[in-house]
């Protein structure tokens, strides 16, 4: 079929008739069939032979009519080949046309939008209601909203009949394309409903947007209800997703030899292997969605005369084995190239083969297996985790690789192996003899749409097991969240795990349905990211973020406002998509709170200080240090940054002394700041879109120190300082920061506040240990004066607190002068801070 060459149009004469004409057609059609049925009974039971024959002929006609009652005039499977002018109306099922006609008539009367009228009309169909329900949308709410749109005077249409018919034609052709893509026989009701989202009408788009229904959603949601049908009354659901094969092969007996009677039995191989063709024959494996290109390439490689060896490289759960299983199914179905025809696909169990066997026994086994495969001539050998072959080599005994490799290199039989990217780089790539004989095929992650389709089938099994209903919204959410936050595995495995957890959780709670919210709840507990829409409490926190930060952080209003705004935008869903939540460059002298603000932010928004991923960039000054940062090119070591973000995708990344990093590392951040993505040495993409990146810099501290010594405030030189940053950073890097914030230097008044905050925080710590700590205002001022340094800001404060408060108190605790339940008061006596114990609390 070549759909691109069709010139589509939509024309049904009934739409050009008057209402009376259409009514007449309906009435006459019904009456005619009643008349024909009556004619059949009259003729067939007349007892007159010639009339009985005619009655039988009419019976054939009626049977044929009722057998094709729900079918369109023409089938999509019989489209003309080559270029053709195709009338989509002829492929429309009678039920679909009936709904279109009804909506057309209603919109003509009421001047309501045809598409919305049709949406309301189609909600009367159970299949559509079920689909809408699966999308976490209540059909009643959907209908109410649609009717509300229809009632609005602004939405009344003043269009001619021709314009209205043009709308029907647009919908009809879109539905035709949709049905063709879904490989249906006719354009059905669900295709018409799906096509509503493709017509580009502002009003219907508004309706779908209200309920966040995207194009293609309904199509996939209907899998859940439509695919259930074949398994409904007469069939049982399969046990695993691999068994979703609708064309099962009757015979399930194991074939000892091939059909051409040229092969031989392989008893030793059978002992240490699984015959995938047997499993496919029993209908247990073979179901495949996606990976079309990789699969075709794999069969091409396996069927060539020289080096028929394929190596599938892909992450865990990406679908390597599913492709192998599908090959087994195609072998059983004879849907393979001639070179693979009548062959068996056998998976060798390396573990069982090698484990526990003394060297000489292993060698014997391998020799026998290789001989059997060579003599049989009909075996495609599948070796899972093929890197294990190389791993065992070099040991004292003859390894499996050493026995198998010469045979594989001789192209004696086709071999397909699977491995993971890291293992491939580490073990296989360095061995040119091994890597050379295999054609490496990278198995890519499924698209989100394909993953949703896989999960729709998987869901049918989960529903049956847990006795819950899973909405399509839950599937969609699981795929979208897994793609974003659960990168340890790829789609669809990652989404499947998440959905499975949500189903288990729902079953545990005794809930009947699993919707998008259920999935979000489970995902949140796993990644500690606020994925739900901000509730009232969180919204309140966000709205008062500045005040909350200032409870623990003094001054630096510009910086506080900037980070607060970034978080407000993020949680309201208005952040720039594609990049991190925000990227800040904090510039300023030491001890002004650059790191402290990051810590406070991590605790308030990201849950704890531990959610801050901190890198001292002075440790990454050498060119080679990039290997430590994002992993070595050979795959031997993984990167500290990429590992940290894979483990904590929702985090604050603090890059201390950013200017000291090697320029190559700084260049990496161009991509991170722009796209929010970084690809590590193993080609894994790490997502930074849920991180705030704070880079701090003391660049040009000489200018700052000089300015401070001259009595200037940092605010006065801020603009000058920003310009001078171009000496240190490339302009393209500076431009990518959301904001460059110059921190002000702190004065004595700020130091007093900071001292008080620190003392309060210390008091809170002691309270948790059962000791009441109190302090006088003079003590705060004393500590502030001792901890102040015009050049080092608040940095000496920590040392002063330690010397004057922490250490003396620690000694008192050790001397048992302060016990649990007692109090300590810090007072100023003769200009010195003294700790006074007060029994029974302060």
């Amino acid at each position, binding site marked *: 079929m070549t759909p691109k060459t069709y010139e589509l149009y939509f024309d049904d004469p009934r739409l050009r*008739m008057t209402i009376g004409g259409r009514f*007449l057609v309906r009435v006459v059609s019904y009456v005619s069939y009643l008349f024909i049925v009556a004619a059949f009974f009259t003729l067939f039971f007349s007892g007159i032979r*010639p009339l009985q024959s*005619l009655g039988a002929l009419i019976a*054939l*006609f009626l049977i*044929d009519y009722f057998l094709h009652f729900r079918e369109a005039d023409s089938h999509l499977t019989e489209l003309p080949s080559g270029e053709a002018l195709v009338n989509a109306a002829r492929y429309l099922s009678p039920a679909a046309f009936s709904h279109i006609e009804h909506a057309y008539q209603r919109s003509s009367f009421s001047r309501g939008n045809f598409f919305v009228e049709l949406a309301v009309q189609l909600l009367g169909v159970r299949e559509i209601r079920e689909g809408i329900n699966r999308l976490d949308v209540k059909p009643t709410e959907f209908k109410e909203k649609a009717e509300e749109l229809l009632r609005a005077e602004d939405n009344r249409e003043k269009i001619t009949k021709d314009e209205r018919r043009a709308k029907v034609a647009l919908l009809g052709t879109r539905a035709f394309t949709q049905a063709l893509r879904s490989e249906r026989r006719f354009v059905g009701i669900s295709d018409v409903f799906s096509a509503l989202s493709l017509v580009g009408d502002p009003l219907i788009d508004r309706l779908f947007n209200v309920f966040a229904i995207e194009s293609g959603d309904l199509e996939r949601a209907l899998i859940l209800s439509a695919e259930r049908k074949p398994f409904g009354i007469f069939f049982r659901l399969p046990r695993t997703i691999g068994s979703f094969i609708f064309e099962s092969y009757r015979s399930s007996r194991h074939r000892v030899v091939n059909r*051409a*009677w040229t092969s031989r039995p392989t008893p030793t191989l059978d002992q240490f292997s699984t015959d995938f063709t047997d499993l496919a024959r029993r209908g247990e494996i073979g179901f495949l969605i996606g990976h079309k290109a990789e699969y075709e390439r794999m069969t091409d490689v396996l069927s060539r005369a020289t080096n028929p060896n394929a190596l599938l490289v892909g992450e865990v759960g990406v679908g390597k084995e599913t492709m192998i299983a599908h090959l087994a199914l195609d072998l059983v179905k004879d849907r393979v190239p001639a070179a693979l025809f009548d062959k068996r696909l056998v998976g060798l169990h390396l573990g069982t083969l090698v484990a526990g066997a003394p060297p000489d026994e292993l060698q014997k086994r391998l020799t026998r297996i290789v001989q059997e495969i060579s003599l049989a001539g009909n075996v495609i050998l599948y070796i899972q985790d093929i890197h294990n072959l190389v791993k065992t080599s070099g040991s004292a005994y003859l390894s499996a690789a050493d026995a198998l490799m010469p045979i594989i290199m001789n192209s004696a039989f086709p071999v397909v192996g699977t491995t993971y990217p890291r293992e491939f780089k580490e073990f296989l790539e360095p061995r040119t003899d091994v890597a050379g004989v295999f054609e490496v095929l990278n198995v890519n992650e499924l698209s989100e749409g394909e993953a949703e389709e896989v999960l729709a089938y998987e869901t049918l099994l989960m529903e049956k097991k847990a006795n819950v209903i899973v909405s399509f919204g839950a599937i969609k959410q699981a795929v979208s969240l897994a793609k974003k936050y659960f990168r340890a595995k790829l789609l669809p495995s990652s989404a499947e795990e998440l959905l499975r957890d949500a189903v288990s959780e729902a079953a545990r709670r005794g809930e009947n349905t699993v919707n998008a919210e259920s999935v979000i709840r489970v995902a949140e507990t796993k990644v500690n990211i606020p994925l739900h829409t901000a509730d009232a409490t969180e919204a309140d926190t966000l709205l008062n973020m500045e005040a909350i930060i200032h409870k623990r952080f003094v001054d630096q209003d510009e910086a506080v406002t900037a980070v607060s705004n970034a978080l407000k935008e993020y949680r309201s869903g208005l952040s720039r998509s594609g990049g991190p939540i925000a990227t800040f460059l904090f510039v300023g002298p030491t001890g002004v709170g650059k790191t402290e603000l990051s810590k406070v932010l991590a605790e308030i928004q990201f849950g704890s200080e531990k959610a801050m991923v901190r890198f001292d960039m002075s440790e990454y000054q050498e060119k080679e240090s990039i290997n430590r940062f994002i992993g070595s090119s050979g795959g031997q070591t993984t990167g500290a940054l990429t590992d940290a973000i894979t483990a904590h995708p929702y985090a604050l990344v603090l890059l201390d002394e950013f200017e000291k990093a090697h320029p190559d590392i700084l260049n990496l951040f161009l991509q991170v700041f722009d796209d929010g993505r970084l690809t590590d040495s193993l080609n894994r993409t790490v997502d930074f879109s849920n991180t705030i990146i704070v880079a701090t810099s003391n660049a040009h501290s000489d200018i700052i120190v000089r300015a401070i010594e001259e009595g200037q405030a940092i605010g006065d030189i801020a603009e000058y300082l920003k310009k001078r940053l171009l000496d240190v950073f490339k302009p393209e890097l500076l431009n990518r920061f959301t904001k460059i914030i110059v921190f002000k230097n702190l004065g004595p008044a700020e130091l007093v506040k900071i001292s008080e905050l620190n003392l309060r925080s210390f008091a809170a710590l002691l309270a948790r240990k059962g000791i009441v700590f109190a302090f006088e205002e003079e003590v705060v001022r004393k500590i502030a004066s001792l901890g102040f340094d015009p050049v080092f800001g608040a940095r000496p404060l920590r040392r002063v607190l330690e010397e004057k408060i922490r250490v003396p108190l620690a000694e008192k605790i050790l001397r048992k002068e302060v016990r649990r339940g007692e109090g300590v008061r810090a007072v100023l006596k003769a200009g010195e801070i003294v700790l006074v114990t007060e029994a029974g609390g302060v």
Partner: protein
Amino acid sequence: MNFAPTYLLGRFFYRIYDFLHHWYFDGSRAFFHRFVAVLEVFERIFAVGMTARFFFHPLYGDYTLVGRILGFIFRSCRIAIGLFVYIILLAIFLFLYAIWLSFPAILVFYAVLNFVKPSSLPVL
């Protein structure tokens, strides 16, 4: 066709055409597909085509003289039995197909012939 009676008349003739199309065109295709499907099932057992292709190959990879002779004998028998079964199948299908094709015509023929000579044919 915009005029309802014209449309109805067109649909009347279309229905007759549709019935004939289903009976003769779709029916023939269904017969052919079913025949091919049944052949495929039997081909999995007899593998006539494949056996012919490997006619001179020894049986089960046994390249000795005995293996070659046995291969020749067994393959000959297999092809002969297979062809015999296929011919029987073909005959059954052709017979059923002929009945299918002629059934509507037989009914018309019965009616016409009964009008001409009412007592010459049995009651249906």
